């Protein structure tokens, strides 16, 4: 999660320097939650991260080069400049690439799990994330219901960061707590305070284990606050100061660091050294990518089909 934070802060500063095409969307404040999910998953599982899951992506095995390449549009990146920022993945490795439409990835993960079941694979988990706002989509409902009917080993992590872009929870839903939705789908529901890494590791880890053991879909509702704008173009001035100052406004990373230091699992010097080496790693990745070629329209295939012979040549 430290790596995610450092990487994202660097991306944000590149954005401010005008070196990134399109937007930059940070998971600042959501690292403990996201990393817990990535760490609870195994190779062979399915993971479809969303906007604020840099930490989870890294924990699931993403190389930071992939992130930097996608943001900077390198031709060598997994998306070859065709897609940007958070819209990346390597589906063949179980790491699905989100489309922008909120809610859309949940049913896709369900389908991946159905396929695994057809193949007779056991003990596989499929996980994906959504925000408080994304729970209002029809896609969310249809997919979670489908998962429940099929009793799929799905872990659905709902990061309730209190806002959907600028829209507060009270304009997004009217239930007391989003976890109250679990019973209506017939799935197991969990709550977690996502400013607390220990709690995240525990609750998310338990949800993943329950799914793996065959207890069907697991819904985890996490409370937290986004410690950045919706994207880096947004100053998030709509988030009340009082909320930022309250418990939810705590930085999970700082809290985790303090805990480590308190428990003397790490010394201040070691932490500084770790941070330094991570910073260097990120700098190097960015320097590498900056030397990489941009995609070349002349060598693009400009064909959307896997079967080029079926492309409509008149449209070419």
């Amino acid at each position, binding site marked *: 999660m430290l790596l995610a934070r450092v990487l994202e802060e660097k991306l944000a500063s590149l954005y401010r320097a005008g070196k990134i095409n399109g937007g930059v969307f940070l998971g600042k404040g959501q690292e403990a939650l996201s990393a817990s999910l990535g760490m609870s998953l195994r190779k062979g599982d399915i993971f479809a991260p969303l906007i604020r899951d840099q930490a989870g992506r890294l924990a699931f095995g993403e190389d930071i080069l992939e992130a930097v390449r996608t943001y900077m549009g390198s031709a060598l990146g997994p998306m070859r400049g065709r897609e940007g920022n958070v819209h990346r993945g390597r589906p063949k490795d179980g790491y699905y690439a989100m489309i922008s439409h909120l809610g859309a990835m949940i049913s896709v993960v369900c389908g991946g799990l159905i396929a695994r079941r057809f193949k007779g694979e056991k003990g596989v988990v499929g996980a994906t994330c959504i925000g408080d706002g994304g729970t209002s989509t029809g896609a969310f409902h249809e997919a979670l219901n489908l998962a429940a009917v099929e009793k799929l080993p799905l872990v659905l992590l709902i990061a309730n960061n209190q806002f959907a872009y600028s829209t507060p929870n009270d304009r997004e839903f009217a239930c007391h707590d989003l976890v109250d939705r679990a019973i209506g789908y017939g799935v197991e529901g969990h709550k977690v305070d996502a400013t607390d890494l220990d709690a995240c590791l525990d609750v998310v880890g338990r949800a993943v284990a329950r799914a793996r053991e065959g207890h069907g879909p697991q819904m985890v509702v996490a409370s937290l606050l986004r410690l950045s704008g919706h994207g880096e173009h947004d100053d998030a001035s709509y988030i009340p100061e009082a909320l930022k100052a309250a418990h939810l406004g705590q930085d999970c990373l700082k809290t985790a660091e303090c805990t480590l230091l308190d428990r003397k699992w790490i010394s201040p010097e070691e932490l500084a050294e770790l941070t330094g080496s991570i910073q260097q790693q990120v700098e190097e990745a960015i320097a590498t990518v900056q030397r990489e070629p941009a995609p070349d329209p002349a060598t693009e295939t400009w064909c959307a*089909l896997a*079967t080029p012979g079926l492309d409509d040549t008149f449209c070419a």
Partner: protein
Amino acid sequence: MITYLEAIREAQAKALTDDPRVYIYGQDVGRFGGAFKATKNLAHEFPGRVLDAPISEDAMVGSAIGAAIEGMRPIVEIQYADFSTPGFNQIVNHAASLYWRTRVPCPITVRLPSGGTAGSGPFHSQSMEGVYAQYPGLVILTPATVEDAYSMLLEAVAIDDPVLFCEHKYLYYHLKAEGLPTEALPVGKARIARPGRDVTVVTYSAMVHEALAAAEELSGEGYEVEVVDLRSIKPIDTDTVLASVARTGRLLAVGEAWPWGGVTAEVVARVASEGLALLDAPPRRLNAKNTPIPFHPNLWGTHRPTAPTVARALRDLLRL
């Protein structure tokens, strides 16, 4: 004798037999065999591979995409093409873009029972192929014969891209053939359904039969009408269309869908831009009327093109 609908069932049975990666997902497709019985007995013959879905078109298509990522070849039955709209997003934005974005193919087949029948009304009669065709990344098949219903559905399942299989409900029971075909034109090739030298009708799906009936009528008046069955509307076999217009010098494009855009606009625009010199008269289009599809058979019969209106349009065109 085998009907168009039975051919669709047989193709699915064969796909399930030949390829363990195939499964069928859709509302009431299981024990019930589907609203039109296109999956009759398949749940029984292929236990666990023909699954009833909740009324969740978005999730149905979404889950098929996920399964395709993992190497399966799902067939999704949408109960009526009209009800694909709640699944529209997953089709046009997700399935259609997956390969281009990620290099992972998306071999799903979405079966869309399409087109009008008497008394079906605005929401059980639509022809959406032209709407979907605007999106890159989709293959769109519109079989007009029992043979094509069978062979093209098998091809659809084999194709590594998302295929929308627009089967026509009017043809389900009306159309019969002696038996299943053993060979077929490949997807992407149009078919000369009737050769002629005076005028070309380019059409597809149920309208092929209206055009053939009109051609028959006009042959009594001394005109030889060539009917081109496009078979797939994305890709369109422009070469075959142009070659036909080169022979006849006249073009009428006929479609059951609405008049703005769609297949007839695309066909006429292609011929105008690639074959202007071939035309001895202005190319013409005949489509459904620009309103929702009416329920009452009186209105419905006027709303869509039929043999008499195709014949009339042909006579007008031949006089030019």
